[in-house]
């Protein structure tokens, strides 16, 4: 036991006092939030430039309504959408010129409104890139509403009156939990869950593969056998797992403390924003618990992979199945996030390898019953014991095998060795 502690101490000290650890501890969450918020930021960034759109209007009635419908302004006060009417005769004569305006970016695109627009129900949008879904959507909605109003006028109905009569309703979401109601937007909750989930996923992946790398380093530096003269392979493996796990735990504790600090500061200075923060201290506790479970599940598997291989290249291909076992739950979590209460989500959250991400997500979103959480933790602890038992056998033989990659039958034999 004492020897495990010595190995833990070495693993811990050599990993904690590194530039990599300090940087990732500080930058990790910042980067994570940035990754999630960056797309939104770039969308707003794009709106700083005016969008010029050519209008080829065969009905000659859309010019004015379009300008009144699209009234967005930029930060500079300028209008965002700038429509230029294109002369039909001019266009027919010099089509190529106009198309080249689109290609050079002078026009973001040209909207062609056919004469029979009220019957054909379609307009044409020519642009260099047609993947700007937001723009296409805006144009469709805008032109649709103009067409709709025009049709109403043609039927002698009052668009304003119709508008009032057919107005929709808004929906407010309220989360019911333990008899209290919390008004909360789906978006906020989703965002928080995503941030936590990505951090959990990334750290399990990073720490797991760092175990693999460190086993291979020990193998290729040929230090293993010297170490085995003073301890046994099980002590060596557990020492490594616990040591690196402790490093991860320290990082988590720092992050959680940082998070709490920010929470306290925000609550005191900007209570309005604090209301939109959707995590609780219990959530943070489970954040740590599920990291520990995920860490031991996957890093033990990665340790086995490291023991089977002699160099990083080999290890990278052998570790693919293990990596998939982490990636798959992560991908599935996007499904679970939409319906965390469904039966399939419930089953997945109890499955080994899936629990750390899926159960954590459910804890964040719907507060599943305590017995379910307890059961999932129990199942996973048993799984971890099993994985450690098998890995210890692979590890014992594998760490002394140099040169070639072990084949599956060989590994099965190793497990059976005395």
């Amino acid at each position, binding site marked *: 036991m004492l020897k495990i502690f010595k190995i833990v101490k*070495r693993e811990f000290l050599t990993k904690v006092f590194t530039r990599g650890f300090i940087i990732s501890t500080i930058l990790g969450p910042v980067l994570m939030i940035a990754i999630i918020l960056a797309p939104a930021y770039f969308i707003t960034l794009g709106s700083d430039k005016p969008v010029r759109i050519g209008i080829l209007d065969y009905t000659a009635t859309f010019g004015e309504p379009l300008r009144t419908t699209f009234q967005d302004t930029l930060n500079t006060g300028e209008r965002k959408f700038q429509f230029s009417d294109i002369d039909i005769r001019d266009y027919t004569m010099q089509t190529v010129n106009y198309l080249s305006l689109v290609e050079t970016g002078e026009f973001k695109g040209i909207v062609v409104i056919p004469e029979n627009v009220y019957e054909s129900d379609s307009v044409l949008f020519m642009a260099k890139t047609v993947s700007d879904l937001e723009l296409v959507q805006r144009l469709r909605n805008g032109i649709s509403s103009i067409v709709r109003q025009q049709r109403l006028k043609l039927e002698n109905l009052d668009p304003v009156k119709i508008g009032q009569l057919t107005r929709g309703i808004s929906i407010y979401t309220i989360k019911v939990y333990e008899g209290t109601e919390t008004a909360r937007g789906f978006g906020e909750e989703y965002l928080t869950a995503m941030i936590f989930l990505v951090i959990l996923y990334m750290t399990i992946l990073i720490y797991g593969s760092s175990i693999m790398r460190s086993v291979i380093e020990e193998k290729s*530096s040929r230090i293993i*056998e010297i170490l*085995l*003269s*003073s*301890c046994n392979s099980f002590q060596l493996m557990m020492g490594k797992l616990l040591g690196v796990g402790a490093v991860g735990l320290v990082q988590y504790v720092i992050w959680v403390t940082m998070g709490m600090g920010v929470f306290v500061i925000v609550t005191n200075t900007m209570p309005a924003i604090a209301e939109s923060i959707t995590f609780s201290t219990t959530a943070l506790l489970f954040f740590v618990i599920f990291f520990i479970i995920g860490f031991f599940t996957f890093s033990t598997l990665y340790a086995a992979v490291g023991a089977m291989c002699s160099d990083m290249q080999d290890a990278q291909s052998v570790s693919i199945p293990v990596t998939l076992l982490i990636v798959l739950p992560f991908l599935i979590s996007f499904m679970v996030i939409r319906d965390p209460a469904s039966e399939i989500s419930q089953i997945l959250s109890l499955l080994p390898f899936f629990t750390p991400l899926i159960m954590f997500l459910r804890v964040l979103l719907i507060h599943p019953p305590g017995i379910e959480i307890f059961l999932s933790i129990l199942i996973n602890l048993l799984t971890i014991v099993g994985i450690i038992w098998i890995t210890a056998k692979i590890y014992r033989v594998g760490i002394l095998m140099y040169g070639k990659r072990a084949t599956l039958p060989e590994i099965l034999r190793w497990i059976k060795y*005395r």
Partner: protein
Amino acid sequence: MDYLDVERITKSFDSFMAVNQASFKVPEGTIYGLLGPNGAGKTTTMRMIMNIIIPDSGKIIFFGESFNESHKNRIGYLPEERGLYSKMKLLPHLQFFGELHGLTASASKKIATEWLERFDLIEWSDKKVQDLSKGMQQKVQFIGIILHQPDLLIIDEPFSGLDPINTKFLKDILLEFKAQGKAIVLSTHLMDQAEKLCEGICLINKGEVIIAEDLASIKKKYGRNSVRLEYQGDAGFIHKIPGVKELDNYGNYMEIRLQEQADTDQILKAVANSRLKISKFEVAESSLNDIFIDLVGR
């Protein structure tokens, strides 16, 4: 007392018999050589002694007791495949080795410093292992396994890759340990080295122990007289001299193996009367190397 007693250990890997029924004893205060060509089973035997590989059958007794984990604190093992954590600094690295063998952090540091001084590495204490030359790293590896003052040292190929100065240095330390009553088991394929250092010898070939006895009795039993000759000229006639069994001719040097009961004086006379220019004539027991080749070749 026998510090190590290996009794009929056997290990096979699938169909390959790595070590078959190997037995030998290593008393305290001796240096014991495990000899054999590459692939003979020396490393597997050492790994079994260290409980790194579990024997299929047989027993290993340390200090009169069967193996338990605490024995590892009384044994120092330097395997053939050895290395260090290249990113660690020298002193903390050695300290780690010492602690792993049961020393306290402070004791380990103190002893490591003493040995670093003795090995002339003290000014490197703060450097990373990767900054050291290969020879220095070998010295560090050796220090790593003697910090805890083990009673039994097991070293696989101790002198491989060492320059002559360090070979002598290491040899002196091993002799010093022997004088302190420690037992040392070393494996080597260099027969002459073993011949000079070891009291006891275990010859292994293809997993089989061919002989395991003390050197003196091996020589008495298997050694035959031979003559070593340094000369210039045409030595073609020598194999015709009565009593000569075999020749190992190098051109300016030859080893003449004699038949049993052959008279070395006859040989000397024959050589002296020839037109050879003799610079050295020596009657010698056959070397361990000869004995080994004899035994393995049989």
